[in-house]
């Protein structure tokens, strides 16, 4: 079970059982939303993992190129939900460029590359996922939603995501 312990470290179980930022932006200020400004955009991305049925609905509050708030709802396993919990925590307050850079770093982590997350160390607990190739898609679902959300916010994918 030692491989398993690597995979399901306490920190993952903690994010799974007590997810940060679960809910919608409409639920209140808990997601870190400040007052609406003229440049404020709210983006919702619904993504699923067609091979297993996991779903995530991610909401981003983007203001002046900064992720002011991030909340999610969804169904999934401990890996996908804990990853969503960590991701939403990690990107809050970051510029969209920084958020996308974190997403790239997360992809590298999934490939087994030796990256570190000084800003949000919890994420490193997911490094064990790369030993379970079937689960990588669970871990990356939330990050893929983030990429889509940022692109959508910039109008790159105007009208293609709901």
């Amino acid at each position, binding site marked *: *079970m030692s*491989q*398993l312990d690597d*995979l*399901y470290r306490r920190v993952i*179980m903690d994010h799974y059982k007590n997810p940060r930022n679960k809910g919608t932006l409409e639920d209140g200020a808990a997601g870190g939303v400040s007052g609406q400004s003229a440049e404020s955009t709210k983006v919702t991305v619904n993504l699923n993992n067609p*091979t*297993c*049925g*996991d*779903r995530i609905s991610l909401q981003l509050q983007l203001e002046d190129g900064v992720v002011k708030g991030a909340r999610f709802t969804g*169904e*999934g*396993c*401990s*890996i996908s939900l804990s990853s969503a919990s960590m991701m939403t925590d990690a990107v809050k307050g970051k510029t969209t460029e920084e958020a996308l850079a974190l997403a790239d770093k997360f992809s590298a982590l999934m490939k087994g590359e030796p990256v570190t997350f000084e800003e949000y160390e919890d994420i490193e607990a997911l490094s064990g996922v790369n030993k*379970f190739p*079937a*689960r990588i898609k*669970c871990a990356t679902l939330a990050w893929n939603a983030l990429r889509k959300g940022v692109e959508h916010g910039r109008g790159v994918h105007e009208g293609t995501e709901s």
Partner: protein
Amino acid sequence: MDPIVLKSEFPILQQEVGGHPLVYLDNAATSQKPRRVIEAVKRYYERDNANVHRGVHTLGSRATDAYEGAREKVARFLNAASAKEIVFTRGTTSSLNLVAYGYARQILREGDEIALTPAEHHSNLIPWQQAAKATGAALKYIPLQPDGTVSMADVEATLTDRTKIVAMAYVSNVLGTVNPISRVAEAIHRRGGVLVVDGAQSAPHLKVDVRALGADFYAFSGHKMCGPTGIGVLYGRAELLERMEPVEFGGEMIDFVDLYESSWKEIPWKFEGGTPIIAGAVGLGAAIDFLEQVGLDEIERHERRLARYAVERLSAIDGVSLYGPREERTGLITFNVGDIHPHDVATVLDTEGIAIRAGHHCCQPLMRWLGVSATARASFYLYNTESDIDRLADAIVKTKEFFR
């Protein structure tokens, strides 16, 4: 039959995974292959390989004999009236699509109906959705009983004189239910329609007689019944196959080709455009020999025994929910462990050397009907034993402890 002796015939099952002897319980997804099937494919490539139906040379004749010999075996296996009723395809999905394109789209008119159940595998659902959209026909769903079974009263109430096609699995890949196919056949024939049977989960596990069942079409895959991937079968009553148009055009399927018009070969060859899956058919023939030697009735009895034992062991574990009927089910068991996501269950089991499936099993509408997003599933075959199920039950208990 002795499952332990049978297991020794499967090279892949003689390995360890994660330091434990492999327990393979994902047979509804694909079965493993006995040595003699692997050898038959190897022997074909080493001795007989050539293209079929055209070579004047010795190898061409041998390859043609091997390919057409496999068709004869499939015909006997299903008790079809003739080998010309056996079309080789890539698998169940392409067989069902062939019926949906080659038959359904030709005969359906606006206002006609296709009846199916919400428990169908996506491959026996989406082809009909598409055919309905293309023709203006309507899809009608036969409701399921609370335990997932199909009642004849519901079948009778759903079918009308406009129902031209009923599409139904013989055995559900999630619930393990056995649908009352011969009575459904009688009900749709009385109304002048045809019955399309998804046989993916029945052909490997129980004796099938398409004529006794009253199936007009019967589709299955080789890889779930000890055969290679990439080979499948569509059985169709000769009269219906004659009326169907081919959906793939090209080499091998033609009678005569002119610049502006062409004509087709007889059935079944008019449906087999291009070089067929010769080695796959040879492997499927070897798999049928193997299964018939063990005995399909024996296999069914063995798997039902395993299912009963699995229900007994798993229902004794606190927090495990089982789906589908308790009694009268084939050799698979679908379950959840408390509120632990089935992926997490499958990952823990994998580290114990146990392979199961987790997810929606290509049955998203059925998952919604069950009120879950996903489940775990253990599915058995002739080489599984009660001790495999003990390993499964013990690992589920470990999973619960791990996630406590």
